[in-house]
């Protein structure tokens, strides 16, 4: 299978495997992203790009129909998305693309449309449901996200964010910066108070942090900073008092 050539395949009911008949080159890139629905409801168009190792004789990639680990990290998926939107030069093209992604956003359960799932600060109404999937065979728990909005453009934003971060590890979620989403913005800067990108991403990260800490149940393993830093500072101060270290704390 050559990279970059769109291929129409039946929508998988459970999993999807790809086999390369020959060792792909080091530079072969296979991107997997949700495309536009075309034809009947069971067909989905995929552009495939995947980094592969030369040492492998064949590459098997298992894709679930709902989750898309496909070997791409959240950062790589973000790159894919940024590239896609950067290629759309006209604002109307970006709006159209967002509206398409809005149309394929998974349904949001009414029971999740509660106050605690509201993302605050947006000019539109946005709901975000966050879950944690326990350790998988690939190791580590993964974050699960679902979102919805009363604005179609915002739904499109959410759809893109969901594609990037749904199924990602907590560290991957925390590593995304608002500035990274800049190319997808429709006129608003990423850190604007009313920027949907910013508010939804911040909400995803806050709730990821909370869930991950709760699941881990151990403050020492708070790799996201605040508690660990505070404890380190305390230890440093104690050492300084004991005369081993000068500290400005």
């Amino acid at each position: 299978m050559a990279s970059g050539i769109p291929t129409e395949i039946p929508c998988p009911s459970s999993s999807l495997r790809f086999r390369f008949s020959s060792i792909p080159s080091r530079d072969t890139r296979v991107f997997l992203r949700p495309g536009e629905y075309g034809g009947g409801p069971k067909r989905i168009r995929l552009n495939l790009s995947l980094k592969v190792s030369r040492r492998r004789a064949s590459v098997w990639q298992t894709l679930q129909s709902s989750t898309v680990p496909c070997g791409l990290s959240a950062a790589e998926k973000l790159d894919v998305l940024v590239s896609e939107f950067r290629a759309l030069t006209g604002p109307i093209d970006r709006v159209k693309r967002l509206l398409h992604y809005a149309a394929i956003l998974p349904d949001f359960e009414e029971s999740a449309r509660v106050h605690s799932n509201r993302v605050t600060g947006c000019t539109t109404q946005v709901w975000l449901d966050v879950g944690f999937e326990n350790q998988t065979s690939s190791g580590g728990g993964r974050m699960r996200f679902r979102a919805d909005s009363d604005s179609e453009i915002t739904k499109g934003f959410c759809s893109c964010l969901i594609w990037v971060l749904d199924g990602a590890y907590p560290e991957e979620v925390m590593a995304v910066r608002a500035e990274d989403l800049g190319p997808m913005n429709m006129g608003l800067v990423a850190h604007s108070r009313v920027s949907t990108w910013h508010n939804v991403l911040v909400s995803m990260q806050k709730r990821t942090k909370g869930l991950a800490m709760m699941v881990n149940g151990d403050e020492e393993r708070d790799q996201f900073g605040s508690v660990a830093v505070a404890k380190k500072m305390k230890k440093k101060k104690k050492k300084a008092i004991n005369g081993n270290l000068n500290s400005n704390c």
Partner: protein
Amino acid sequence: MALKLPPFKVPALASPFSSSRMAPGSRSAFSAAQCTSSSSSAALREGERPAPADLSLGHLTRPDFPILHQEVNGSKLVYLDSAATSQKPTAVLKTMQDYYERYNSNVHRGIHYLSAKATDEYELARKKVSNFINASEPREIVFTRNATEAINLVAYSWGLTNLKPGDEIITTVVEHHSAIVPWQIVAQKTGALLKFVGLDQDDLVDVGQLREMFSKKTKLVVVHHVSNVLASKLPIEDIVIWAHEVGAKVLVDACQSVPHMAVDVQAIDADFLVASSHKMVGPTGIGFLHGKIELLSEMPPFLGGGEMISDVFLDHSTYAEPPSRFEAGTPAIAEAIGLGAAVDYLSGIGMEKIHEYEVELANYLYGRLESVPSIRIYGPKPSESITRSALCSFNVKNIHPTDIATFLDQQHGVAIRSGHHCAQPLHGHLGISASARASLYFYNTREDVDNFIEALTDTITFFNSFK
């Protein structure tokens, strides 16, 4: 054979307002020969320039606003968000630059020439504002950061001192958050009760309900003059009379009225009135509170620090007289002087002329918007007895206002606002989460409205094509 005439050349029109610095109190120096209150009615052929007599106030003043002459996202900017903030004429910009270039200095305490000059100009700005709203004297004008801070000043200074448990503060569901939240805080601290007046069937504040709410317990009434969402105007003079009959004070939020019409605080007789500079072609960072001097004299300070004191000891301090008592720290000097220049500019046109033009623009906007399918415009329909301000908040069925505003901006360069416009209780009352709002000022034209409607129609067609 048709005779081809050379293009009609109109000499470049210098704005009569660009460098005017009218004497305080001057309200209208605008020549009727220079514009008509009616906007240009004849369609112009390509290459044809309008004769001066056909030019509207919008056409004549636009050259004074450099920011309006640009493209955004590949389209000519159509700025319809003046209710959020107005654009600034060159005269205001130059005044502020002049301050920083020639006489920037701290005010009130300095001895040297620059300080004296800065102090003179700062206090002259106060006098200009005082004259602009016909206050009794300049001491009744307290410069604040904006109208929000002015309301907070009244809330924390007058409110905390004078409100007791059981006292009632009457306001409406239409108010801006800045007129609600400070009173929620003060009501919580003092035990006073906040009571809200709703809307009638015409989307107007139920004035009858308001009148019935007055009682001996009423100590304060907080009301808007003109609504930033409904475009409606309250009968402020009557409300003040009713309030005073029961011994209550009145605070008027005049943010949407002072920029657009002549406001006479002595005629209104409200106890407090607030407005923001940035909505009246002045700079951001400055606003004012008008308070009756007898009230201000009795009020304790809001913020403590330099400027507002008389003497400072280690264990206590004495305070300056109003307005200094309420202007702690180094003020926004350039901004105050810029506000003075804005007052000069508006006075050069004349507030009556501005209002007359905007009423016509408001009717035109409403009429054109009303014809858009599946649209709902909030607030009263204009009529012989009901005048709307030149703004329309609206929703289009099945299309989120933020989607509309985004597409208008990205595809057409039209700037409107979407959201709750700092009026969430009102939106809740109307049963909506958000609305779009187009708001005009005297530098807008009928062509702006036409461009907006054309863009809006295209936007609706676009989104409907995806459904």
